[in-house]
């Protein structure tokens, strides 16, 4: 799935240069579940953005299914994100003016899905996460856990190959956190996804099949109880 070779990312902050990633080499197989853990400012979110084709590395290559996405044009990166990558954010990032169903539909819009089909798929995705009764609710009318379920539906409705999650339980209480983690684990297996999650929660990190610890821009991989989901594509 992913093969990262010497991935470096530098930012300029005034006269200062920040080295977010320093020559990372990493291989993630299809169906892997990898948790990236590290201290704040260690570069974990930057790594996730590279994997999600949201940003380009300063140096090195990121192969996705054999294609170096660091060299792809902006248009091709956009298409890659639209078709193959689902992303979940810590603060849900739902569009506040759109209903739950419409929020899920936003992920299908760039794929050219027809409106009726879009509505049907979005409703199905929300039902699969237990929000069949909340289709027409605005994000402000939903709890944090429900909002994250909408965000998960939005990420999975297009049936991506990869699900990236940036601190998906960071804004939730402990009970809801466990619910969401159980849901994600179930979906990972059900959909046969490659699932990469960033967290600073050591409880989550301990139970992860593969743990990528990132510190000062460098990664160490630990296979704790490696297992892969049955890939369905």
């Amino acid at each position, binding site marked *: 799935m992913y093969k990262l070779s010497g991935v470096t990312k530098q930012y300029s902050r005034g006269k200062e240069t920040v080295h977010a990633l320093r020559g990372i080499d990493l291989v993630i197989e299809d169906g892997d579940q990898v948790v990236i853990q590290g201290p704040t400012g260690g570069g974990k979110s930057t790594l996730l*953005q590279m994997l999600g084709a949201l940003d380009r590395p300063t140096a090195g290559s990121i192969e996705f299914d054999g294609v170096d996405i660091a060299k792809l044009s902006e248009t091709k990166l*956009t298409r890659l*994100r639209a078709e193959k990558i689902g992303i979940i954010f810590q603060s849900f990032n739902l569009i506040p*003016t759109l209903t739950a169903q419409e929020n899920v539909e*936003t992920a299908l819009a*760039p794929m050219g899905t027809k409106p009726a089909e879009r509505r049907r798929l979005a409703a199905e995705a929300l039902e699969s996460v237990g929000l069949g009764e909340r289709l027409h609710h605005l994000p402000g009318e939903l709890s944090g856990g429900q909002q994250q379920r909408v965000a998960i539906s939005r990420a999975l409705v297009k049936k991506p190959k990869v699900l990236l999650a940036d601190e998906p339980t960071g804004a939730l209480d402990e009970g809801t956190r466990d619910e969401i983690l159980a849901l994600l684990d179930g979906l990972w297996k059900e959909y046969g996804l490659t699932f990469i999650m960033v967290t600073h929660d050591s409880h989550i990190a301990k139970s992860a099949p593969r743990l990528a610890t990132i510190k000062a821009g460098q990664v160490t991989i630990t296979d704790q109880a490696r297992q892969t989901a049955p890939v369905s594509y």
Partner: protein
Amino acid sequence: MFLIYLRRELRRRKKAALVISMGLALGIALVITVNSVSAGMTAAQDKVLQSLYGLGTDMTVTKAQTSTTSTNGTPKFSFGAKDDSSKTQSSDNVRVQGFQTLKSTVVTQVSAQKGVDQAVGGLSLSVTKVDGSFTQGKAQSTTGSGQRGSTGGQPKVQGGGADFSVNSYTVYGTDVANLDLGPMTTSKITKGVDFTSSQSNSKVVVVDSAYAKTKKYSVGDSITISGTKFKIIGIATADSGDSTANVYIPLKQAQTLSDSKDLVTTVYVKATDSKQIDTVKATIQKNVSGTTVTTSADLASTVSGSLSTASNLATSVGKWLSIAVLIAAFLVAALLTSSAVSRRVREFGTLKALGWKSGRVTRQVMGEAFVNGLLGGALGIALGLAGAYTVTAISPTLTASLGSTSSGGGPGGGGRPGQQAAAKAIDIALTAPVSVNTIAIAVALAVAGGLIAGTFGGWRASRLRPADALRRVE
């Protein structure tokens, strides 16, 4: 998705949308009102000029101004002493207005010039009628009262005097064979009938309605001018409320009354092409010597008074005020849209992370700004129409003074109806007509305002990189 998202966003950000729309609306309303008032001013000026020229007249030809040494400019009245003091005496003085005349052959000469479609001559007269009676004084002898040697006093005249009224009015001799050009075209026959081409030798008159009302004339009555009795066949009402003359008579009759056989004061000219007026003017001035040609543009420059002041205000201050307010409204709309994009960085970043192309995000922002522009346009048109309607409803009266600065063949010059108008001010009620063009301009401005604002916001949104957009909120 585009329309759903658009509708929801506009509904959610009602206040921001209203501020942007109101800003644009104010600018557009001002443009509509100023444009309409300007159109009203132009219409008022046209009415003033038409009251002198008549509809369809592009220029007038009058005699070039010469120093007047004629003595017949002073009205003379002759009254003889009569025994019967109670008997009323009357004397009319008929004068050519301005004392400058052209030969009737000039009309033919002007008609023959290149670019001239039609030329018609007219004669403007001024009539002063004095009516009244003398009362003879009575001689009384005085008896002696202590004056030595006096056997009887010298006779002394006591009592006596004169009681006269003066009635001045204007008469215009019109070419009854060519009634579609000249001053009478600005009046409509409201009672009776108009002249016919066969009435050049008939003693018939058409009286201006305002004058007829004052003198209590009606169709069928008679009016005596310098001893000649004319029958009133029609009452004419001037469109602008201010007529060229009080009484209209056939040209031949006017020439006879004023002893001006084959003379006219003004030749009214219609050009074949209204865009070639200056060329035609030059041609006439070159080929017909001793004449002054005055176009409506020349005459417009002589209009003064509150109409002129208001017109200048509308075209200068009003125009620049509209432009300033519009620019300010566009800038405010652009800044507010741009600032709205800044507030929605995470939203747009998320959409880009979901695979939305920059173009789709830009279209969304531009769509919202465009709708704001259209809302502003609709509000602006409503406000502008209300403003224009208010001006029309109030109909402020403006005064136009004519021809005071002209010399020579201008309105103050060569004995044409304009000269009569020069002495008085014409009151015009201002209206503010809103044309389709004005509405079209307003719609175009609304669209432009929306697009400018949308371009600013869309440009900012298109430059957002998904990672940057997400990083900003972390």
